[in-house]
Structure formats: C-alpha cells, structure tokens
C-alpha cells in the first residue's frame, strides 16, 4: 500500500491544535506505520513538498507569509483540512479585526497601550507583513474538510484521519469552541 504523505501546518494560531495532535500519544506510532510526515512544525522541513496527500492546517491567515504558504499548500496537496477554529473562523487570531486595519491595530498595541517609548517597530524585511484582515483559510483558498474546535480534541483528529485513511468522507458533526 502507498504510504500517506501527511503535512501539518502552523499558520496564525497558538499551536494548540498541534498539541491536541500530539495528545494522540502512542497512536502516532501507529500512524507512522502508514504515513510519512513530510512537513510539520515538529519536523525540520523548510520547504512545503509537492504531491502531499493530506495537509492539516492550523491557524488563520494573518500575514503575507501565511498567504503565500496557503496557496502553495493548495497547489501541492490533494486534501486540505482546516484544523481548529482559527483556520475555520479566524477565531482568536481574528480578534484584532474589529480594531480596523493593520495601521489601527499597531497604533492600538504599540502607541495607545504600548511601551513608554511608544513607537511602532519597523520590521520590514525581517518579520512577515501583517494583512489588513485576518482571514479564515477558506477565504483564501478552497478547503476540502473543516474540523473546528479550540482545539479539536485528539479523538476527533484521530477520527478524521482514520476516516480519510479508510477512503471515506467524514460526516461526523462538528462543534465550534
């Protein structure tokens, strides 16, 4: 049997969804018998590989690096899963949206509630540029499967992967939060 090429991605999120994934403990060893982890924040691969079968994407799209990576993932992956509330809805990462544009947000954070020096740091070329709006993954690229939850429980993640490995379409009802 062909081994599953699995990627997990960490966009604008707290990594809680990855923690949930790691909560699968010894089942991960079982998973390793049928799947290769080809890209993940817990591995040291720097470039998203081509021909990925399944990508679990945690986090919202908050900066230009996320945006570029999201497009790469979509181009090079058969099944894209929005994993967790941030990827599905924007969630906590998107809490800055009501404040307005990036300029308003930075003003609020660094000037209005900032350090005594009160300057917006100039990070051009060092840190990815923030998008005006934090977006859920599906607002940027088509998403095949949604698994909300903050974080989705280990059991849910396992259920989803098992369903997909069995070649079935997931029908389990989902819950936010």
């Amino acid at each position, binding site marked *: 049997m062909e081994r599953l090429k699995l990627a997990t991605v960490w966009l604008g999120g707290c990594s809680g969804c990855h923690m949930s994934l790691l909560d699968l403990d010894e089942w991960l060893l079982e998973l390793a018998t049928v799947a290769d982890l080809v890209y993940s924040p817990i591995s040291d691969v720097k470039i998203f590989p081509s021909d990925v079968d399944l990508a679990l994407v945690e986090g919202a799209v908050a900066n230009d690096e996320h945006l570029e990576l999201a497009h790469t993932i979509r181009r090079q992956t058969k099944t894209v899963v*929005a994993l967790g*509330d941030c990827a*599905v*809805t*924007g*969630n*906590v990462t*998107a*809490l800055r*949206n*009501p*404040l*307005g544009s990036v300029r308003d947000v930075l003003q609020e954070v660094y000037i209005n509630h900032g350090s005594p020096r009160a300057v917006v740091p100039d990070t051009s070329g060092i840190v990815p540029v923030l998008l005006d*709006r934090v977006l*859920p993954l*599906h*607002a940027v690229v088509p*998403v095949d499967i*949604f698994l*909300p939850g*903050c974080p989705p429980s280990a059991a849910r993640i396992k259920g989803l992967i098992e369903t997909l490995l069995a070649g079935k379409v997931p029908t389990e*009802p*989902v*819950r*936010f*939060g």
Partner: protein
Amino acid sequence: MSARTLTINQTLVSAREGESVLEAARDAGITIPTLCHLDGLSEVGACRLCLVEVAGSSRLLPACRTTVSEGMQVQTDTPRLQEYRRAIVELLFAERNHVCAVCVASGHCDLQDLALHVGMTHVRYEYLAPSCAVDTSHPRFGIDHNRCVLCTRCVRACDEVEGVHTWDIAGRGVAARVITDLNVPWGEATSCTSCGKCLLACPTGAIFPRGSTVAEVQRDHSSITRIMTARGERW
C-alpha cells in the same frame, strides 16, 4: 377545546386547536430549530429558523406563528429548509464577533448548538467584524454586544415576565442594538430590578453574570497569605 389532525413530515399528528405548528411538532417529537422562541414568551417570528413548508402556501411560514389547522400538511426538514437554516446561522456568525473559544457561554450556548444542529462546518460569508461595546456598568450583570443576536428574548422576558421593560431595541439594520432604558448604561437604568431574567433568557453569552469572564477574575491573595503567616507565627 377541539383537536386538529395534521401531517408533519408524512406523520399524522394530533394537536389542540389554536396550537402553533411548533408546539404540535414538539409534542410529536419532531425538532424544529428555533432561536427567538422561548417557552413562555410571546412569539415574534424574527429568527426565521423555524420556517416550514406548508402545502398550499407559496411562502415559507414560521412554525412558531402558524396555527395548526385540520388536514394541514407540513414539511419541516426539506433540503431547501436545511440549506436556508444553515445559511441563516452562518449569517449570524458573520454578523458580530462570535468567538466560542473566549466566550463565557461556550458549551451551553443556543447559537453554538444551532451551528451543530444545522451542520454548519464553516461560514461562507465575509465576517463583518464590527466594533461592539461591552457594558459592565451594572453591578451584577454585563452585556457584550459582540455576542448579541438580537433575538429580543431579553426584551420580552423583561417586559412580559418581569413587567418592567428595561430592555428594548435602538437603531436599525445591523446597527440595531439592545438598549437599557433610554439608551443609558445598564448600571444607570433606574427601571432595572436586577432580577436577572434577561440573563436567563439570553441564548448566547451576550448577557453574562459579572465575574465570569477571564478579565474580571478577582484574586484575593489575602487569605492564603494569612494562612501562611499564621503557620510561620506558630512555628
């Protein structure tokens, strides 16, 4: 009082005269999703989630405001209704800032349950992300407009049960907001009896008891300090 026999989803159902389709369906164990409905309050037919198809009517009718009649044929769960309900719930999630992860009501929220019930996996509409106020001027309760769905259950509970009418709606369209008295901070609304019925009626975390949010948690270290010092003094 005479009985009426109607058909709901191909099942014959018996109902009391004057009863709503919603009541008749519930008695028969058929669930029709609702949001603005709350047993004991008047029906406003505003959330449109309980819309059903009735044979002979070209329009969809709200089950909560439609009285049963003899021989009525009702469909409560057609693909079209399922799609519309899911879209309506999505519209609500896109309207204000419903962030379950940081909400006091997560796990016991009608809106969250509705999303589950209608099978919402994600929101297809653009999030409006409005800037909404949080009013914590009342000593016991707070209102977070980010989570309000304008169901007016608080308005009706206050008016019809408590008999006070502290709550009402101001503004229109997406700018509509629930208000206390003549749009004064809740803590200054002199008509409010602090009975808490609005809190009980609220389907989401919009109206919440003070002290339940993360930011409000007050830690009193004095008692642990007292114990520790007492130990030190004894030894």
